[in-house]
């Protein structure tokens, strides 16, 4: 089983459109995982049937029982996150500030604080129009632990792939270099970096690749909108050569991306010419 993760550093370079195309092309040979849990969009193109859904619990938040509270203030004193302000002469937990460390719980003399497990989102297993299974999720508003939800999505995808004897897992990652990205990279066999020839595209590619290197995973790169700025595109190619990253393909600046999306379709369904050919060849190289 080969686990392929698609990331970009910078957002909006075309990761999801490209991943969804691979999901179509891979068809029943693959399991798809949408690891961009805090802005998951893959389902908009894959017509999932939402067959199974489960709540995801992770992490805890403090809660003060006002009847037991003797207002000693120990909890507020030890909290490093200013999460227990006094409101109307009561110690009340500010949920957005609370990190769930539990320090307050340990210093409360009257056991007035409980640490409550949090429902931070939902995850789903769906059958898609591409005749494969999509594992996806939705993180709750402002929830923490997106890294853990990513791990859950990936582990479910792995389990399904193993049980049903699938060859590939194709995972759509999130932008950035923080915990959800780290979580989506862990255990991957190959990384596809989707970039664009803009100063920020190149800058973010370099940063996210430093992270990929720490994981020792081999990588390939797709340059989207390659004709937007040929000078920066050449700088990207140079970077790929220096770092031994496979240059998988170039896609042109093309509003077909948007048109396909607006139609609820992947590019390989919407376009039967140039873009489709490039993506078919890219998928052949990647797998």
């Amino acid at each position, binding site marked *: 089983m080969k686990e392929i993760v698609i990331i970009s*550093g*910078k*957002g*909006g370079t075309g990761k*999801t459109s490209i991943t969804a195309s691979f999901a179509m092309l891979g068809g029943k040979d693959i399991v798809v995982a949408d690891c961009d849990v*805090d*802005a998951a*969009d893959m389902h*908009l193109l894959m017509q999932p049937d939402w067959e199974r859904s489960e709540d995801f619990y992770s*992490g*805890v938040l403090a809660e003060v029982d006002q009847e037991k509270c003797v207002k000693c203030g120990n909890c507020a004193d*030890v909290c*490093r*996150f200013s999460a227990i302000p006094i409101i109307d002469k009561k110690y009340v937990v500010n949920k*957005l500030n609370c*990190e*769930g*460390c*539990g*320090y307050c719980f*340990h*210093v409360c003399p009257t056991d007035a604080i409980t*640490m409550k497990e949090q429902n931070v989102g939902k995850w789903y297993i769906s059958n898609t129009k591409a005749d494969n299974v999509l594992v996806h999720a939705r*993180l709750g*508003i*402002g*929830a*923490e632990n*997106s*890294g853990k939800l990513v791990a859950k999505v990936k582990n479910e995808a792995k389990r399904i792939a193993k049980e049903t004897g699938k060859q590939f897992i194709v995972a759509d990652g*999130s*932008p*950035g*270099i*923080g*915990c*959800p990205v*780290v979580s989506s990279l862990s255990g991957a066999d190959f990384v596809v970096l989707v970039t664009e020839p*803009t*100063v*920020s*595209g190149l*800058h*973010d590619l370099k*940063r*996210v690749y*430093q*992270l990929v290197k*720490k994981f020792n995973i081999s990588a390939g790169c797709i340059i989207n*909108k390659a004709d*937007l*700025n040929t*000078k*920066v595109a050449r700088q990207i190619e140079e970077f790929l050569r220096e770092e031994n990253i496979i240059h998988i393909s170039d896609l042109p*600046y093309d*509003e077909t991306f*948007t048109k396909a*999306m*607006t139609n*609820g379709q992947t590019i390989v369904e919407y376009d039967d010419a140039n873009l489709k050919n490039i993506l078919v060849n890219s998928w052949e190289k990647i797998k």
Partner: protein
Amino acid sequence: MKIAIASGKGGTGKTTLAVNLASFLAESRKVVLCDLDVEEPNSGLFIKGNLIHREDKFKMIPEWEKEKCTLCGHCQKVCNFHAVIQLGDQIMVFPELCHSCYACSELCPVDALSMIPQKMGELKQFKKGGLSFVESRLDIGQEQAVPLIAQTLEYIDKNFDDDFIKLFDAPPGTSCPVIEATKDADFVILITEPTPFGLHDLTLAVDTMRELEKNFGVIVNRHGIGNNDVLSFCQKKNIPVISKLPNDRRIAELYSRGSLIYQKMPEFKKQLVNIADYLLKLQEEGIR
């Protein structure tokens, strides 16, 4: 006045708007732009100012002192993040999992875990004409953006008084880094594109802002592509649409080179003038 520029979806034009609006406003007012997308900070590629200050930023993590430790195991028990683990006669600390809550350190009966600073990133301040620019970047391998964002906001509060218009370029998404970057803002601009992905992620961002009880408005970027669903959504939900930025390949080309757009494209500048007027009016009315 603090204004955060956020979006659910990445790549919808946060940085484009932030750098152009900040530069434009700085022509007539005191402005500080702060890049809070500490994982992938990009504003600096467009604001090529003079570096006037840099400092390392640290988070506090426990350090184990073997000689003092009695291996009672209390540290492991109180750490909710599995950042302190006892393995045989060793206490292992995993800094990337640590949230700097101090519980292990201060609850240790023999003071065997003292808190020491660990570098997580760096902050730089630049000046370009009337515009001040502050950016922080997270070190590669550090997983938590929130502590660095919080410290960067403290730096802004300390160094720039209320005469400044403070613009924050926020990270994408709707999870904890976005909350941190927007929670102190007086007004939040959500920038989106009129596509299904744009709409879907805007919906999440709107829910987040409502949860935070923020004043916010929407700017539609690349107006003309996709469909009208974003505009209908805003109308239905009574969300002000502050501006529609045109879809134009020339904008993408200017952006790709790291150039400011309003100086070369009057139609883009016209929209910036409208946005600036909108924000200045909010300021006069004293929104909070």
